[in-house]
């Protein structure tokens, strides 16, 4: 397990929290596409998210080594639309990578865009993502 913190910047008129939630939901759609989901489904996101206690920015807490199953029915349209900062060539590469792995699994680390800030646990702590623990 290699935990990675991925702070999500506000984009597309969405706050950091809104965009992080939308991206997280699309990561879950890699495994369970919207076409297989039910409105009654409770499970909607792949990874937990945390909120910076000072800035309010939200980070997705992923695992670079986790093997994510790519459902054959996956549709990347909405995920790519949430990543306007990612160069088109990189998006094309992601599409090709996903298409080549439909029905099999890929490590989450291979799906993180080059434009995304990636923080280790130590780096996230240094940047104040976790307040000092308060013991009772």
């Amino acid at each position: 397990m290699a935990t990675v913190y991925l702070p999500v910047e506000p984009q597309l008129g969405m706050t950091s929290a809104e965009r992080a939630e939308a991206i997280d939901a699309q990561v879950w759609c890699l495994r369970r596409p919207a076409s297989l989901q039910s409105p009654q489904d409770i499970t909607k996101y792949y990874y937990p998210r945390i909120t910076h206690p000072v800035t309010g920015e939200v980070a997705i807490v992923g695992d670079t080594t986790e093997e994510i199953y790519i459902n054959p029915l996956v549709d990347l349209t909405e995920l790519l639309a949430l990543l306007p900062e990612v160069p088109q060539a990189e998006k094309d590469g992601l599409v090709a990578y996903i298409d080549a792995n439909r029905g099999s699994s890929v490590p989450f680390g291979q799906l993180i865009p080059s434009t995304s800030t990636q923080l280790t646990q130590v780096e996230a702590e240094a940047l104040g993502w976790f307040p000092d623990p308060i013991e009772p």
Partner: protein
Amino acid sequence: MASVAEIDGLTVPSAFLLDTYTGAAAAYSVRQLKSGATVAMRVRRVTGAGNTGNDDEADVVFDTSLATPTISLDSPVRNFSAGGSNATTLGEFLNVGTVPPYNGGLAFSNADSLTNTASCFVDEWKDQSGNANHATQSTPASQPQIHSGTVDTDLITEGATTSRPALQFDNSSTRHLQITSPAFRMDIRTCFYVFRETTSVNFSGIVSCADISGEDFNRTAASNINTGNGTTTFGYIAVDLSSSAGGANKNVRIQGTKPTPHSLASFKSDSTNASLQRNNGTFDTATHGYGTNVTNPGNAYVGCRYSAGPSNGLTGTIQEVIIYDTSTHQSNMSSINNDLNSYFGIY
């Protein structure tokens, strides 16, 4: 409490616990606690990547064939994810195989042509109080588990001392359930928690209530139960740690050795004091310093603490959580404790 009583030769069902002790703000259990509260939880099955039925969800209904309606492999399932299911019971939904004594030891049929036995996780623990304060978890790695996915195996139970089913939590992924913005009063509470810690994690949470600033031990609800520090103490409760409210740090704690205890923690507070007991024992009391009629502006959590985010997850099991935000039943706590102990066999 679904035991039957005889009245003039007739057998009639006795009242469920929350029918007798009314007014709960929230209640979660593996057994039915109130008339009409027939759905225990919504679950997600995991059969393996790419397998048919992976991540499908269903509601689990209490098994009324049992003296006390409880979740079991014979529990009816319904309200399936899109695509539906042919399963009629939880055992079929999970394709568990042959698990005596169910159906006389007959196999649960593989209703959905699953390729293996599914493990089972809780998306939502239904609030039986009638207040719709359901405890949910929308992220798979953080969901508590009720079946291991091992073929021919029954539901996860609390441990060796009882065969009652239980929700299994794991600190490694901080499994927990969230009660979103419940309108609990923070000052007056009467609460009951049945749990077991199987691996000691300092201050792991059983139930926590975060305030709007996100600090569970800073101006927090008066019913944060955690498992204490190390192996020498058990069962802290944090009350009025708010420097902003002018209160000094005050804890109520139960001192005691804790070699993986199956525990009933019961809590009560009034406008001045907060008290905590374990297994119907002596109350430990401290002044909490809250005002009156204070409601919780944040979320509440089952299975973890909260410090900027869910943290200090419990490694162990939880079977029942009952929260009153009144003092109405504080005089009945011993009777309620006895009911919980009678069913779960705690002490």
